[in-house]
């Protein structure tokens, strides 16, 4: 598996650290139910999902990787920074 880091280019999977699903963080006062879901409840879809990866052994950037868990196809990689500013 290779991921194309927007900064470094196509790199081997072993350079990356996997964090988990890319979730929207609830507002501080969103209530116990929203925070419980954010912390503990996960979907496990067969198909496209958005995940957080870090280019740990490369530039160090955090990435949003869109990936299909059924076909192992990597659909897109972008910087968390760019998404945050968009």
């Amino acid at each position, binding site marked *: 598996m290779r991921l194309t880091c927007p*900064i*470094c280019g196509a*790199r081997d999977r*072993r*350079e990356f650290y996997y964090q988990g699903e890319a979730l929207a963080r609830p507002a501080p006062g969103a209530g116990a139910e929203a925070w419980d879901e954010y912390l503990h409840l996960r979907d496990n879809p067969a198909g496209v999902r958005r995940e957080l990866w870090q280019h*740990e052994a*490369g530039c160090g950037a955090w990435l949003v990787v869109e990936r299909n868990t059924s076909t192992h196809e990597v659909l897109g990689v972008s910087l968390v920074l760019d998404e945050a500013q968009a």
Partner: protein
Amino acid sequence: MVELIAKSPCAGLLPLAIGDVQVVEVDLGVLTSIAPYAGQGGATSDALRAAHGMRFPKLNRATGKDGARAIWFGRDMALLAGPPCDASMAEHAALTDQSDAWASVVVSGAAAEDVLARLVPIDLRQAHFATGHAARTLVKHMAASITRTGPESFLILVFRSMARTLAHDLKEAMEAVAARG
């Protein structure tokens, strides 16, 4: 007054010469990471040029030459190797002295590419990684910075605590390449 003598990271481990490849430890001088503040990339580059005569390196590149080099070192970061970083840079970027944190070696020789191909997961051949190219990647399991400094020479930096592992992994790869004749 007792004179303390600094021990280099690879003391007692290098140099090595096996087959067509040599590994030597190099003293790069002062190492300073330069991380431009948000929106200060251009100003940092101008200040670096004014103070040290080289541009802030583009992604995956190094600028300068032996003795004073700026190596791309990650997202929004470069490493100035050689002279102490001029204080005027502090206005535009976060400066951190990292001189004692890194082990620096030069791998050179006709088969240097073949040796590194056994350790590094990126293509370091001349066509893809020319002189002046730099990368943050792995050497076996170690996070490293690799810069091509010439047609047959690479500068490799790893964390100082990894010096012995680096020397060992390079030695094994050099022996394996040499054994193929």
